[in-house]
């Protein structure tokens, strides 16, 4: 259904959007963190960008693994190992595949969620990446179960992610730097949830064009 060419386009678009939102993400992090989430993510995706050429013609697993290793080895900070682990775990379920199907998509997404949970010892409600990623995953799975097509399913995932981002404004941070603020983290949007939303939105933009 989906060949690995589209994945490269998605990765490229994620990078473009993350880099465009560098200052926005950093500013969110300045309020409840240490003002570097945009810098960290841009650095990682710039390094990924530089490897797009060598991804050409590779299978889904290899491409995702390259993204993972690049993020892990360039970002530093919390988001590097978290997103890195997400991509790495996702890569394991599509190893060697040039084409993937719905099942694979659900598996990849699930692995990404599990990877972040494991690496971050975190869960929904901690005011992190997971507050965007888990609702998105659940919406996607539900959409597929209801027989929706991939484009629609991702549209719904994006909406759920955005709601998740909004939700982070109302809760106390329990993980990451913002957790040091305790109560005072309430009222502020989580940078990591926001970058997750941007990445899911980036998937949709590519699906729309194809």
């Amino acid at each position, binding site marked *: 259904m989906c060949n690995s060419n589209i994945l490269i386009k998605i990765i490229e678009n994620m990078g473009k959007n993350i880099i465009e939102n560098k200052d926005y993400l950093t500013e969110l992090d300045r309020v409840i963190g240490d003002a570097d989430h945009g810098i960290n993510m841009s650095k990682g995706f710039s390094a990924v960008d530089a490897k797009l050429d060598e991804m050409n013609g590779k299978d889904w697993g290899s491409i995702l693994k390259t993204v993972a290793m690049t993020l892990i080895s360039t970002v530093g900070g919390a988001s590097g190992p978290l997103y890195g682990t997400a991509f790495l775990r996702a890569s394991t379920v599509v190893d060697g595949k040039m084409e993937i199907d719905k099942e694979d998509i659900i598996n990849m997404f699930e692995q990404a969620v599990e990877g972040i949970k494991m*690496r971050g010892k975190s869960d929904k409600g901690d005011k992190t990446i997971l507050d965007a990623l888990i609702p998105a995953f659940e919406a996607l799975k539900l959409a597929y179960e209801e027989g929706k097509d991939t484009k629609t399913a991702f549209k719904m995932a994006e909406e759920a992610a955005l709601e998740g981002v909004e939700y982070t404004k109302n809760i106390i941070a329990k993980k990451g730097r913002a957790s040091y603020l305790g109560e005072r983290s309430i009222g502020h949007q989580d940078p990591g949830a926001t970058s997750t939303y941007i990445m899911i939105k980036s998937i949709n933009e590519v699906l729309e064009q194809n």
Partner: protein
Amino acid sequence: MKKIINHKEDVVEEMLQGMVKAHPEYLKRIDDSNVLVRKDAPIKGKVALVSGGGSGHEPAHGGFVGLGMLDGAAAGEVFTSPTPEQILKGIKAVDGGKGVLLIIKNYSGDVMNFEMAAELAQMEGIEVQQVIVNDDVAVEDSTFTVGRRGIAGTIFVHKIAGAAAEKGMDLDDVKRVAEKTIKNVKSMGMSLTPCVVPGVGKPSCEIGEDEMEIGLGIHGEPGIRKEKIKPAREIANILLSNILEDMKLEKDDEVAVMVNGLGGTPLMELYILNREVDNLLNEKGIKIYKTLVGEYMTSLEMAGASISVLKLDDELKQLLDAKADTPAFRIL
């Protein structure tokens, strides 16, 4: 942003070069990395210690690499954890066959990157253990959260675990004294002015002309509260009260004290603060066995200070007194 730098993107690279140029008798840099290790690393038959974290805290951690302290330190970007790849290079460069202890400050980023490095090192057959320093009592201690931050108390862990390793203790024992030190050390800081991360160019936080911030983090993370600036005596009292509340010290207990400057505060003020700390501890009948005053764990040019108190027993005293020879910490 007034700084003595070249390009803001190059500060870490150029600082590391400047460190190695300044201390060639202590340090060498691992190729293609931001890792500094002891000139004589790896030392066969000795447990090796690796620490590190974001840059901007100098002399932490590269300044504590040397005899009786760290074997290696991995430097991340300013206030950003080094990557697993970097840390792994450090681990491999210092491993002397007796295992490696990672000393990690408790930040999600640091913990995750060091843990990944440990996993990778273990896959390569190196025995790796880790301890996580969480001395900052400004942060509530809760099992539902990531818990407390690691700040200047980390230097005591470097010193004591380093002495233990130098003495020939095995990895489990070195880890045991490191954990004892972590259990026994509490810290808290305050600041008068924010710092500016070169890559960001804006102050990390706002502190009014007559205000100070109590309990802030070493990356400019907001603290407990802002209040009107107070005399040194009251500053000492605020920080120490929070620390002691958490420590349950008793009369005649012996402690080591660190009065640590955050970068922009001159030594004169640190000594004045130390006078107040000393007086307050004396009033409580607590015995000061050793005092360190200076810049150990900074936050770029931030003006302010932190106080750390380490409760001692005979073993810790002996290890604290042991010889150390590093760029930023020496005991003859």
